[in-house]
């Protein structure tokens, strides 16, 4: 049981933007996807979520090709938080979170759906915004409310099978404390048996919260493994073109990456 990418390739015009690639997202883990701009991180996420048809290969959700799932059944298991959302209508934050319950609620939302939505707002520290219009929220608040919507979508204890949460730069517009809060929420989701794939830019956040890291460059996975094994001075210089020190720090669950300046690009 997993969300599995098997030999996928994505072509745009004549260029291959992704793959060939194999990757498996396991229940219980947080998998961080890192890499420089244009490495194919968002493309990978689009392909894994079924949004983007792959030119070759397939994506399996619990062993069944993603597009063979009934849309509602798929939506109860697989949730996606896009990098940015274009909601331009004044739903309240609570209503946005409740929209996440729609795969579960047949007509009107019941009290269980309301409870799930409120719990999801709590998890992203947005409950105090519940009755505020989405349009009056700041960028970071909107992003957290959208995450609540996806958490509410996947928060059904009755749903059988595993649940997969795909996050595209969930911390992009958040202040420091809320970056950690959001990844703590992701970690709790994984602890409860879910699986999280998060595209992240901050290597230290990734090292702290991820069980595994996938480093992407030019559409391929160049490194995959535990942060302590993957993160090295050499890798960061090679992939990101950045000179860094990678150090162990007492009490920190992963290594710390300290930037020192741009590195000369490898030949």
């Amino acid at each position, binding site marked *: 049981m997993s969300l599995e990418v098997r030999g996928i390739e994505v072509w745009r015009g004549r260029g291959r933007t992704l793959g060939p690639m194999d990757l498996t997202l396991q229940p219980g883990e*947080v998998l961080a996807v890192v890499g420089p701009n244009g490495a194919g991180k968002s493309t990978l996420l689009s392909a894994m*979520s079924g*949004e983007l048809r792959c030119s070759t290969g397939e994506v399996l959700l619990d062993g069944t090709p993603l597009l063979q799932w*009934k*849309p*509602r*059944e*798929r*939506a*109860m298991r*697989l*949730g*996606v938080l*896009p990098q940015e*959302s*274009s*909601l*331009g*209508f*004044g*739903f*309240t934050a*609570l*209503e*946005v979170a*409740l*929209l*996440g319950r*729609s*795969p579960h609620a047949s*007509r*009107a939302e019941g009290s269980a759906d*309301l409870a799930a939505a*409120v719990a999801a707002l*709590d998890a992203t*520290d947005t*409950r*105090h915004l*519940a*009755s505020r219009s989405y*349009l009056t929220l700041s960028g970071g608040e909107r992003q957290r409310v959208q995450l609540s*919507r996806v958490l509410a*979508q996947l928060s059904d204890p009755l749903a059988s099978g595993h649940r997969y949460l795909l996050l595209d730069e969930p911390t992009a517009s958040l202040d420091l*404390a*809320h970056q*950690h*809060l959001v990844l*703590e929420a992701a*970690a709790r989701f994984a602890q409860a048996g879910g699986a999280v794939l998060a595209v992240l830019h901050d290597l230290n956040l990734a090292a*702290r*919260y*991820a*069980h595994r890291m996938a480093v992407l460059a030019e559409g391929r996975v160049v490194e995959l493994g535990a942060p302590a094994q993957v993160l090295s001075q050499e890798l960061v210089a090679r992939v990101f073109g950045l000179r860094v020190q990678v150090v162990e720090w007492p*009490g*920190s*669950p992963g290594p710390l990456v300290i930037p020192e300046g741009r590195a000369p690009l490898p030949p």
Partner: protein
Amino acid sequence: MSASGIAPVSATYRTQEPIHPAAPRPWLLLTALLLGVVLLSLAVGAVPVPLLALAGSLLERVGLDIGHKLESVQQAVLLSIRLPRVTLGIMVGAVLATCGAALQALFRNPLVEPGLLGTSSGAALGAVGAIVMDVALSAHLGSLRMLAVPGAAFMGALGATLLAHRLGGGGGRTETARILLAGVAVSAGAGAGIGLLTQMATDAQLRSITFWTWGSLGGASWDVVGAATPPLLIALGLLLREARTLNLLLLGEREAWHLGVDVERLKRRLILAAALGVGAAVSVTGVIAFVGLLVPALLRLALGPDHRRLLSASALLGASLLVGADLLARTAAIPSELPVGALTSVLGVPVFIGLLSRKGAA
């Protein structure tokens, strides 16, 4: 993995505030408004029909005599002129407002409206085309001739909406400027077509060009009501069923897809239903602009964007608005009649400008 050693961010949790999911339920108010406008509209006109006499005549049928009843002229005016006109106004107003709300969700933009999008002018082009071609076609169509005008209006509305959707970048993020420009282009094209066709038309066919450009309920009769009712009610029913999925569409097409909505099929259903409704409406009343903009815009301010309230409330308020505007149109300058679409535009344009400037400021 362990998150130990991190200062608990939960310390930043705010004190928990009560949740208020209860939203206003305006049904009583809107129904009362519609009932009032309808009664007023039945009573007022060149031949006044006193409501007391109307009540007396109705009660007389069940054996009660309250001393008032309708004269035969009043009865004739009521039954064969005013009642079909009001009935048509209710249905067309409800459908235009509901189609407006649904198209706004489809384009994820509150400035979209059947009139602005070109849907209405496309329908008018189809209807005018069918009327002008009538002589040539009637020999072949036989009994299907009755369906020629509404059918052509539907096709025109469908084509125009699809074109506007394509030009407006309906697939991805929709920008206001792009949609409005698409609407301008489609409307201009349809307007040019209507202009050319009117040159080819005979005087008898061209009862009045203003009928198509400004709209009127003056052509109402029980025959017209009978022909327009099925497509109008079907369109209304199809759209009301989509209330929940329209909410999800507001999140964005990707987001709706991830929440289990078959977005492509939903879009096809919406465009078909809107084209059916607007096509049927335009084929019997001409283009009545801004009902579809004005009504959902006002209701969103009062009720929020949830389509489970918005759609049916739009139907009720749209019906009231059109019946009220028609009452004004036929009584403000007796014996002549003002074009009802001009009145709805007088109300709608300020709202449109308000929405546009707010959108620009955001």
